[in-house]
């Protein structure tokens, strides 16, 4: 309990620090706004995101439809609101998978060293020698696009990159005296890795995770745009852009509003990630 309270107070401190940077503050505000929108979802969306209204096809933005309608008369405003759920869910679960996988691999290889380290990191290098988007496209093309597939693939693509960061952080901490002490006490390797080492590499891991979260949005939106992500009729932002592409010149609202939504979220995440990096480097 005591511990938990201290943690909470620490978090508040960090958030306060981050909001001293103008970009950090803008980033956090926009992200919170989207999280609230995603949580409220159907409560604030005026229409069902998937209901067809054939009489209202391709309507320009108006009071009735603030972001206009698409070729089935679906309300773009509602689709953008509900779509925020898909992008946030996708990107955060993918980042979580990458973080768990990557930090475990980094901890094990960094701590054990030797042949395990050599072989596993070599393999990670090979995985990273494919461009991320291409690798994701290949896997999703083969196993068929799905929400689950997108999450897994993005998690897998970014795990080696997080593993690398975790490993080099471990190599640094490993030499410290308290690790030596734990070894002398006869603690098991698992205990040392997850109880002694892990809490001491949160800093670099946090920075990397925040950057990866931005990339995960970037990648999942791009896959959605290619039609290899979430499938219709689910309103995914990338998918909305794909559907709007053929009508760009005479129904531009169909593209503009989802594009602005994606842009605001990725830019906000990168603003925040930049502030976190500066904080970790002691520049804030």
């Amino acid at each position, binding site marked *: 309990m005591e511990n938990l309270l201290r943690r909470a107070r620490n978090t508040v401190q960090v958030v306060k620090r981050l909001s001293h940077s103008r970009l950090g503050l803008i980033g956090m505000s926009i992200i919170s706004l989207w999280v609230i929108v995603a949580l409220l979802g159907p409560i604030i969306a005026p229409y069902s995101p998937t209901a067809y209204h054939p009489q209202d096809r391709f309507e320009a933005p108006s009071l009735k439809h603030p972001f206009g309608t698409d070729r089935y008369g679906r309300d773009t405003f509602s689709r953008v609101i509900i779509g925020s759920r898909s992008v946030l869910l996708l990107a955060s679960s993918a980042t979580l998978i990458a973080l768990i996988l990557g930090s475990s691999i980094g901890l094990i290889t960094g701590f054990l060293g030797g042949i395990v380290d050599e072989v596993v990191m070599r393999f990670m290098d*090979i995985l990273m*020698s494919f461009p991320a988007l*291409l690798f994701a*496209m290949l896997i999703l093309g083969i196993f068929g696009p799905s929400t689950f597939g997108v999450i897994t693939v993005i998690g897998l693509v970014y795990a080696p990159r997080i593993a690398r960061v975790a490993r080099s952080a471990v190599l640094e901490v490993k030499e410290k005296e308290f690790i030596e002490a734990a070894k002398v006490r006869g603690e098991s390797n698992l205990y040392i890795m997850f109880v002694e080492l892990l809490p001491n590499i949160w800093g670099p891991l946090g920075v990397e995770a925040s950057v990866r979260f931005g990339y995960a949005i970037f990648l999942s939106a*791009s896959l959605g745009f290619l039609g290899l992500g979430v499938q219709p009729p689910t309103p995914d932002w990338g998918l909305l*852009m794909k559907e709007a592409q053929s009508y760009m010149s005479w129904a531009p609202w169909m593209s503009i509003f989802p594009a602005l939504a994606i842009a605001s979220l990725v*830019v906000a*995440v990168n603003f925040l990630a930049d502030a976190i990096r500066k904080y970790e480097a002691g520049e804030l």
Partner: protein
Amino acid sequence: MTKFLSKRLVNMVITLFVASIIIFTLTEIMPGDVAQMILGQYATEESLEALRAQLGLDQSPLVRYRDWIWGVLHGDLGTSLSMKGVSVASLLLRRGRNSLFLAVAATIFLVPLSLFLGVIAGLKEGSWWDHIISTSSLIALSLPSFISGTFLMMIFAIWLKVVPAMSSIEPGANLFSVFPKLILPIVTVSLVLLGYVARMVRASVIDASHSDYARTAVLKGLPQLKVVWHILRNALMPTVTVIAMNLGWLIGGLVIVETLFAYPGLGRLVYVAIQRQDIPLIQASVLLTSAVYLLLNLASDVIYTFLDPRIRY
């Protein structure tokens, strides 16, 4: 140096070999019957059998992998399934040329511009110029290409009508004569790297100007221009590596940009191949892009060792 180079080359060949196994295995577990796909669902069992035998599909995976690699090493990449009878090698060559043009043009556009912006921001650290350049390059590097491309298309093609919106061109067209069609894709594919490199340059210029040698240069009364020259010479060294290492990013970017602007390049070819489950085309195009990516990484390491005399292998 030769030892370092040969070690890196061997490493690259091994990586490429493992990559080829991964690609082959992935396409191997792809659901769907190739023979059925070619002949359609009304084909008789005998004709399917005959085609499978002709394509070598009745052989074991190991034999097929050997045959495939043997073909790749001899420049025979098979024929495309979705574009009947077209040889994959000629397709890759034609589309690769188009993509190469786009990538080279983008590099020519982005390198000087990002260096210029990064140097200005770095030398004027904390000024308004710095804030504007840093923030806009952070925005540029965050935006997915299909978003920035859509904005550019809306503004310059649909609203202002100064450039064409679509970049579809005839096969074998002279790329210089259709250059206006290429402007939007070139700018779009450059944006992410432009932002990234500009920020890297800024950071290394700031590092260099806080260094001891820069302070010494100022204190011993060197003219300002000379001090700046000292700083730049040292700051630009890591930048070359950053640029070479991230050119590989252009490959992923090209997939999106070529799809958005309907430009017939390698990136869109990979996309179409995956969509149509055209296995020979997928195998060859993914292997080729990985090879290019690895070569770029190797090049960046070599350039780095040439530039930094402290690193000797």
